[in-house]
């Protein structure tokens, strides 16, 4: 089995504040020792609360940020420490769809130039670009004649389709979807999710789907990774995770997914407390301040991220 993307012990620290000489006052560990692998053609969902570091993971894989430590292997090649010019040829394989469909499209460029930008970078001619952009517009469900319009002429959902068309332009192998539907209305979310699923089936894409919305992630993902305070706490197939969550945090997240039928709606189990500050994480298990099953060992010792069953990874002393 050869993974498309393999991430080993990925860590990213951000400097916080600065003293008189400009030295940082503290290091914020946004991503802490994360390891996972992506198989070709699968969708891995990344879920977690706001600020847990899931977007940072996406940006590290895209090499928009340089990791503090750890390794990123893409098709076996170590891309962790490539310089920007060295990285550029690899960029055609890893593309991105961002959360905000407004900020992610340059208001001064026509759709043709936005979607065509990656093509231009990889040496396609003007005619080839126009042809490919028209094809991409059809794939994402927009009339090709709209390509000589500017972004302000489109709605949020349409803009997100343009963003997807741009990501698909150079036929990437991996697309990082960073909260790709979170800014959209629910009805439009469903359209975009179905579009992503269609595209994946059609082109055999591998998706890293980052979202805070477990319901959305469940809809698209084959496997799901759950993050808490910069660390992975559970990684399992979609079925297994929903049927039998092993980490108490996953269980709490699943319990918090809104239930449409009031008859089956139980009492909402709300986690007590707030997320600890990532600047000052608690000793031991990062979840110990809010865990319903906390014991003395959890406060003293950080649990390993271990494989408890085939393909089921969890970071908990007392899983299940």
């Amino acid at each position, binding site marked *: 089995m050869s993974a498309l993307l393999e991430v080993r012990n990925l860590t990213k620290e951000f400097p916080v504040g600065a003293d008189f000489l400009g030295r940082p006052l503290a290091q914020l560990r946004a991503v802490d020792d994360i390891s996972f692998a992506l198989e070709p053609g699968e969708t891995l969902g990344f879920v977690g609360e706001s600020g847990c570091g899931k977007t940072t993971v996406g*940006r590290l894989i*895209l090499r*928009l940020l340089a990791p503090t430590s750890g390794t990123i292997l893409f098709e076996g090649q170590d891309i962790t420490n490539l310089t*920007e*010019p060295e990285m*550029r*040829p690899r*960029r*055609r394989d*890893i*593309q*991105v769809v*961002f*959360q*905000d469909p407004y*900020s*992610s*499209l*340059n*208001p*001064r*460029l026509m759709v043709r130039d*936005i979607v065509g*930008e*990656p093509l231009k*970078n*990889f040496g396609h001619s003007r005619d080839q670009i126009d042809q490919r952009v028209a094809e991409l517009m*059809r*794939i*994402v*469900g*927009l*009339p090709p004649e*709209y390509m000589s*319009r*500017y972004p*302000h*002429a*489109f*709605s*949020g*959902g*349409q803009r997100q*389709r343009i*963003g997807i068309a*741009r990501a698909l*332009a*150079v036929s990437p192998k991996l697309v990082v979807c960073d909260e790709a539907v979170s800014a959209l209305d629910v009805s*439009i979310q469903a*359209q975009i999710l*179905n*579009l992503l699923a*269609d*595209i994946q089936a059609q082109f055999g894409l591998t998706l890293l789907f980052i979202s805070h919305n477990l319901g959305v992630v469940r809809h698209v993902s084959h496997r799901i990774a759950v993050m808490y305070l910069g660390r992975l706490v559970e990684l399992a197939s979609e079925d297994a995770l929903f049927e039998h969550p092993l980490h108490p945090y996953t269980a709490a997240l699943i319990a918090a997914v809104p239930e449409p039928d009031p008859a089956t709606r139980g009492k909402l189990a709300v986690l007590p407390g707030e997320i600890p500050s990532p600047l000052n994480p608690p000793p031991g298990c990062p979840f110990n301040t809010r865990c319903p099953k906390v014991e003395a060992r959890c406060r003293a010792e950080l649990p390993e991220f271990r494989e408890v069953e085939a393909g089921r990874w969890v970071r908990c002393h007392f899983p299940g």
Partner: protein
Amino acid sequence: MSATALEPTVARTKSDFWPKFRRNRNAIAGTIIVTFVVVVAIFARLISPYDYDETDILFTWAHPSPEHLLGTDALGRDILSRLIVGAQVSLTVAVAVLAITLTVGILLGMIAGYFGGKLDSAIMRVVDIIFAFPDIIFAILLASALGPGITTVIISLSVVWWPGIARLTRSLVLQLRTELYVDAAIASGTPPFTILIRHFLPNIVAPLIVRASIGVGFIIMAEATLSFLGIGVQEPRPSWGGMIRDGIVSLRTEPYLALSASTALGLTIIGFNLFGDGLRDILDPRIKDR
């Protein structure tokens, strides 16, 4: 294939530049003055009734008359002709200074804002050093060190004026740096310089145009100051500053020279300022307080 998008398409909004322009009286007044000065400057040699350096020793300090509409100066040269050619000199300096400062300032400002780090610190410290001197005084210092002449004026005004453009550009770039389309461009493999040209420049050009058009007033004023002090444009080439200096000695008895040159200078500066302010109101209401 997926379903066609269901969302309605917003109609393309028309540019609101002209309707706003028509409602802005300052902008209209400024445009009229600026256009007039520019046309006069371009066709200066054609419309000036005499050569600017044609002397007439028998006819010095002449009062306004049908032959010499604004009279003559101490050497009997026609004041109107010298005013007209003086406009050409002023605008040549302004255009040259703008070309230099916009090129240097935008380039360095974009580099500082985009790349950050040591490069940013180095560029911005130079900017701070130049900013620490009062601009006119620094220009006078430079001009006296370089020796008089029109090239000197252009160089010394460029040196004092590019830091403002660089600082404005940098701040505009920093604002845009967090836009996701910049990240998308990086992720698409667009090289940094192309990102600056394709994604930053078109989005920062409006405030820079405004800044430049307001700056023309300052540049013309500064050129006149240097020429007034005798370290700017040199005789026999006319400049408004030099004409004011020449006229001041006989201001009580023969006021026409100093008055007409000051009026031309004042009107031109007011015109460019009105024009620049009007453009600012129309193009970029956000930077009103800057």
